[in-house]
């Protein structure tokens, strides 16, 4: 993989900030514009370093699939944040014309081939995309993003077995935030219950398993980059366990009509009464941490950092405004047969 030069490091910081600011704006929409977002959103705040560090390894032609917690990936890939926000607001200028919503973003031209709303079910699909890459022989690599919860799903095991058997060019990136909705990993995973890293699961599939600090984008870049190099060289898949902390609750609350949707506090507090764990995570927030590191290393000038922050805020203000101003699709558009069938 390539060494990260200063420009690249600043780019990574910028993408992390863009994801953070976007997710904040989604969350604020529930307060500032109640009723605008319907359904279920899931935010990536806390995982920016892992997302950006992974995506920074991608070469032209590489592809990825993700979960319903998917806003961060297209943002880092360069998809227009106006169209992402409009999709989340259900508008016809949304990324998917209002058909998919927050959980089903997609941008095939930028290599983002979509998500699944069902835990673990995107993993076999990403494995299939890697199968296609193997057939095409153009050196493509596929990143399969999922959470720790998915590693209990049969789909995870079946996919890793197949990918290792056929040496498919895929990197399985498990963002382990230690929670599966409101269940802690130790409550549902035999390895976690034993205090073991989840990357140990890779040994059942003859593939390397590595655990990395998902709050450090450079560490993630190096781990995923090494895995991508392996895959590109035809040596098969790798499991990268990227340890992150989700800074928001699993998602906005699910409520019957009439009850305003909002983001409650993190499950560490509401379910486990462990405010200390949450506050420690806030103190270790990867975004300001990376900013401080780059400033300290002389890579990023504080005034430039402030400028970037201002540009990002403006960008996201624009995204929200664009989305608010966008029209809803015509109701009849729901019956578009050419969207049901190709």
């Amino acid at each position, binding site marked *: 993989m390539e060494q990260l030069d200063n420009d690249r490091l600043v780019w990574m910081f910028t993408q992390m900030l863009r994801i953070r600011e976007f997710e904040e704006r989604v969350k604020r929409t529930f307060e500032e514009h109640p009723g605008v977002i319907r359904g279920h959103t899931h935010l990536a705040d806390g995982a920016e370093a892992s997302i950006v560090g992974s995506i920074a390894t991608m070469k032209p032609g590489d592809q990825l699939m993700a979960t319903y917690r998917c806003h961060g990936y297209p943002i880092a890939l360069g998809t227009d944040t106006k169209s992402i926000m409009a999709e989340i607001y259900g508008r016809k200028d949304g990324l998917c014309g209002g058909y998919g919503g927050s959980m089903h973003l997609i941008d095939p031209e930028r290599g983002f081939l979509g998500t699944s709303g069902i835990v673990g079910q995107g993993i076999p699909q990403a494995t299939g995309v890697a199968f296609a890459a*193997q057939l095409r022989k153009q050196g493509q690599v596929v990143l399969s993003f999922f959470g720790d919860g998915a590693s209990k799903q049969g789909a995870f095991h079946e996919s890793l077995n197949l990918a290792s058997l056929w040496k498919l060019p895929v990197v399985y990136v498990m963002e382990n935030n230690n929670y599966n909705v409101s269940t802690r990993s130790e409550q549902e995973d035999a390895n976690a219950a034993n205090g073991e890293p989840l990357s140990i699961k890779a040994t059942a599939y003859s593939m390397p398993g590595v655990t990395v600090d998902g709050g450090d984008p450079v560490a993630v870049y190096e781990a995923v980059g090494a895995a991508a190099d392996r895959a590109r060289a035809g040596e098969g898949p790798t499991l990268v366990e990227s340890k992150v902390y989700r800074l928001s609750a699993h998602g906005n609350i699910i409520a019957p009509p009439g009850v305003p949707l909002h983001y409650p506090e993190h499950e560490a507090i509401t379910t486990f009464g462990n405010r200390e764990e949450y506050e420690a995570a806030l103190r270790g927030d990867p975004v300001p941490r990376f900013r401080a590191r780059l400033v300290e290393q002389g890579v990023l000038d504080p005034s430039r950092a402030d400028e970037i922050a201002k540009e990002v805020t403006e960008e996201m203000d624009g995204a929200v405004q664009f989305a608010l101003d966008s029209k809803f699709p015509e109701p009849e558009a729901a019956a578009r047969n050419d969207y049901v069938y190709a």
Partner: protein
Amino acid sequence: MAREIPYIAAVQEAIRVEMERDPTVVFYGQDVAPSDEDPLVQAFGRERVRVSPISETAEIGMAVGLALAGYRPVVELLMAEFMLVAMNQVVNEAPRLRYMSGGQVKVPAVFKAGYGFTAGWAGQHTGSIYGMFMGFPGLKIALPATPADAKGLMAAAIRDDNPVCYLINYLMVLEHGDVPEGEYVVPFGEAAIRREGSDVTIVATGWTVGRALEAAETLSKEGINAEVIDPRTLNPLDTATILASVEKTGRLVIADQGTRHGGASAVISAEVAEHGFGSLKAPIAQVTALDVTVPYSEPMEAYVLPNEEKIALSVRQVLGEAPVAA
């Protein structure tokens, strides 16, 4: 040029012809060509023809991914019931992704499996479960009833840009029939009128087409002239041909190997009841499997299923020439 070959060979031929024609077609599944001497492996190599482990979720999910990435997978699932192990991928992923993306992607994938093999394969391997798939828009369903259709519908399934459940009844695999050589496509959504008649319309699916034709033969000796229609695909369903026939005959008997509830027969009945009501001179009759798990023992297995006698009896009933059971 057509020549007589068995149904099972027609299916294989379609796959081979399409793989020759289109390098993006790949074929894999459990026990697909385990030996390197297999003709498909010889022709296309191990990249495009693979054997996979018993991992339905991965096998079908992978097909979705391959399709999203521009390939056209054909997945061998062996039995329709094994699709149930990966039900999410079949009904909640493959047929929904295009729509949810606002038309940005397509998922051309063929899920191939056998169904309804009433040879004592018992409760978990003998179901005709395709009816449930009719409730998932975006998912096409093909049920070839002849060797020619086995080839033509497989070719159409592979060329279709949507996910297709292609289901063959293993009872028919050795039936011989005329099958055209080379490229041969039977379009989806076009029912076949297997026998013309004016007294009653029998709509029959898959293996029951042959039973309906046998019943029609028997009935013709009684002076009853039955029209037998094979829809070929349940989605898209050629209701126009069915309605036109019912307009001509005024009576409808539906034969399907699936259960009475939640199946193809119920859907077709409702369509005709709603859109062809004015043509009907008698209530619609359904000849389906009983609503039970298919039992193992032979006499019970036979009892549960539709057959030639039951179809003929149903025809006589709708013609008022036999009493209707209470």
